[in-house]
C-alpha cells in the first residue's frame, strides 16, 4: 500500500486558486452534462424546433409597424429560449440533483467556497448556451438574411446579464424543488411567463400598451430587449435604461434570495 507519511501540513504545498477550483468543478460538470442524454437533447434540439415553429407561425402582417422581421423576431426569441432552456431549466435540475446526492454538502467541507460551488456547477450550461447563441447569430446572418449584430456590445451585455440572472433564478428555484423530476414542474412558470410576456414568442411591440408596460417588468424582458436591440438595432436610450435596470434588479433580487435561502442539504 502507499505510504501515508510524507509532508503533513501545507506550509510549502501550492494553494489552490479560484480559477483552478472552478476548472475542476466545471470539468466534472461537463462529464455529467455529456452523460445526461435527455438534458443534451433538450438543450440542443428544443431551441431549434422552437425557432422554426415561431418562424412559421409568425405572420409579417402582425409585425407591421414594429420594425421587426419574422426572422429577426424568431431568432432573437431563439436566444431567449436558449437562455431559459440551457441555463435555467438545466441548472435547476443540476442544483437539485447535486443537493439530493449530498454532493453540495460534501463540497462545502473542502476549500471551494459557496459561490464557487454554484458558479462551477453552472459553467458547462452557460458555455453551452453561449455556443448556441453564436450558432444562432451565424445562422441568422448566413441563411436568414439578417444583418450582423448592430450593437455587439449591447448583445454581449444582454447575454451576460441573462446568464447571471437565469443561473441565479435557477438556484432560487431549486430551493422549492424537492426532486429532479419535480424540476420539470417548478421551472414551468418562468418558462411560460417569459415565452408569453418577455417577448420570446410574442414581441412586446405587438401588445396593447398597458399590457406591454406590465410585461416590461418581467424577469427576462430586460435581457430580451438588450439582446434584440444589440442584434437588430432599434430601441432608444430610455428603453434600454429601463431594460438594464429591471434586469439588474431581478438579478439582485435572485442573488439575494439565494444568499438567504439556498439549501445545501436535502430536506429531512
Amino acid at each position, binding site marked *: 500500500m502507499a505510504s501515508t507519511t510524507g509532508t503533513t501540513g*501545507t506550509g510549502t*504545498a*501550492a494553494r489552490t486558486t479560484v480559477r483552478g477550483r472552478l476548472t475542476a468543478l466545471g470539468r466534472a460538470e461537463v462529464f*455529467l452534462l455529456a452523460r*445526461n442524454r435527455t438534458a443534451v437533447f433538450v438543450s440542443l434540439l428544443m431551441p431549434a424546433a422552437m425557432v422554426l415553429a415561431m418562424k412559421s407561425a409568425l405572420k409579417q402582417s402582425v409585425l407591421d409597424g414594429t420594425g421587426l422581421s419574422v426572422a429577426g423576431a424568431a431568432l432573437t426569441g431563439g436566444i431567449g429560449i436558449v437562455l431559459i432552456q440551457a441555463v435555467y431549466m438545466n441548472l435547476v435540475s443540476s442544483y437539485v440533483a447535486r443537493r439530493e*446526492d449530498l454532493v453540495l454538502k*460534501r463540497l462545502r*467541507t473542502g*476549500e471551494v467556497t459557496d459561490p464557487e460551488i454554484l458558479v462551477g456547477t453552472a459553467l458547462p450550461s452557460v458555455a453551452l448556451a453561449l455556443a448556441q447563441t453564436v450558432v444562432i447569430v451565424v445562422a441568422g446572418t448566413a441563411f436568414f438574411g439578417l444583418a450582423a449584430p448592430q450593437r455587439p456590445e449591447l448583445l454581449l451585455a444582454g447575454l451576460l446579464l441573462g446568464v447571471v440572472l437565469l443561473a441565479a433564478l435557477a438556484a432560487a428555484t431549486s430551493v422549492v424543488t424537492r426532486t429532479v423530476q419535480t424540476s420539470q414542474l417548478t421551472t414551468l412558470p418562468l418558462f411560460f411567463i417569459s415565452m408569453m410576456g418577455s417577448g420570446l414568442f410574442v414581441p412586446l411591440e405587438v401588445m396593447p400598451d398597458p399590457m406591454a408596460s406590465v410585461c416590461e417588468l418581467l424577469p427576462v424582458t430586460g435581457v430580451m430587449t438588450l439582446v434584440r436591440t444589440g442584434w437588430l438595432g432599434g430601441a432608444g436610450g430610455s428603453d434600454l435604461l429601463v431594460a438594464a435596470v429591471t434586469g439588474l434588479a431581478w438579478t439582485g433580487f435572485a442573488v439575494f434570495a439565494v444568499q438567504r435561502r439556498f439549501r445545501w442539504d436535502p430536506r429531512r
Partner: protein
Amino acid sequence: MTSDDIPGNRPDRTVTPVTAASASASRSDAVIEATGVRRRYAGGFEAVAGVSFSVARGELFALLGTNGAGKTSTVELLEGLAVPDGGTVRVLGHDPFRERAAVRPRIGVMLQEGGFPSELTVTETVRMWAGCTSGARPTGEALELVGLSHRGRVRVKQLSGGERRRLDLAMALLGRPEMLFLDEPTTGLDAEGRRDTWELVRELRDGGTTVLLTTHYLEEAETLADRLAIMHRGRIVTAGTTAEVTAARPSRIRFELPEGVPAARLPLGLRAAADGQRIEIRTHRLQESLDELLTWARESDVRLLGLDARSASLEEAFLDIAQSASESEKVAA
C-alpha cells in the same frame, strides 16, 4: 492492504499514562478547542448543550455516543459547516467558520453522509476533488491508500456502500491534512474493510496526523483512541483514556442458578440482580466477589451455569452511562 500488515501488540499502543495524556492536551498544543459549545435547531431542539473538550496535536480522539447524542452536530461545528449558538470553537488556532480559508487547506473531512456525483467515475471524482485541494496527492496514490486502485474506471453509482465509504476517505486524505475529521468512517464496511481502515488511521496517527473520530462501534474507539469522550443527549458525560473511563465502572459476573436454588440463597455480601434463575452481579471488587461466590457455591454444592465474569469494558461503561443518564432524567421529570 493485506492482513499481514496488521500488527499484533505494538509497544506504542499501550495506554498512555493518565497524567501524560492530560498534560499533552494543554492549551498551547491543542489542535481543537471547544468551550461550552451549544447548537440549537430550528424547532428549538438543543442537539449540543454545552460541550467542552480539546484535542492535542498528534492525538486520536474518539467521540462516542448513542444515536442522536449530538456527535455529528458537534463535529459539524468543528468542521466549520455551521456556527455554534453558544460557546467557542478553535481549530488549528482559527475560527473554523469565519476563517475557513485558513483552516480548510489544513484539514480533511469525511462526513457521516456525503456524496459524489453518481455518474462520474472514481478517478474523475478524485481529480475533481484534487483540483479543489491544496497540495493534493496524485490520484493513483490516493486510490491505493484506500485499496480502490482497481476501481478507478467504475462509476460511483456502481460502487458498494463500503467502497463509497473508502472513496470518501480517500478524499479526506487527499490534501495530507494535519487534522482529520472522520464521522463514523467504518459504518457499512465489512470486517476486513474495517480492519484495513483502522490500520490506515493508525498509520496516519503515527505519521503525526491529529484525528477526531466519531463512532458507535465501541471496539473501534477502544482499539484506536488515545482519549475518548462519551456523549449523551448533547452533553459529554465522561471523558479520558479508555482506562480512565472504565476505571470507575463496576465489573460484572453473570451465571444461572440450577432449578430449585432460589436467588435468595446467595450470600448477602453480593449485590445480585435476579431475573428468574439468571443472576447478574455488579461489583467494584471482582476478585473478592468471585471468591465469595465460588466459595459459597462449593460449600452449598451448587453448580453455576454459564459462569461469566468480566472487568469493566468500554461497552459496560457506555451502557451504564446511557442507562443511568436516562434514569436520572426520569427522576428529574
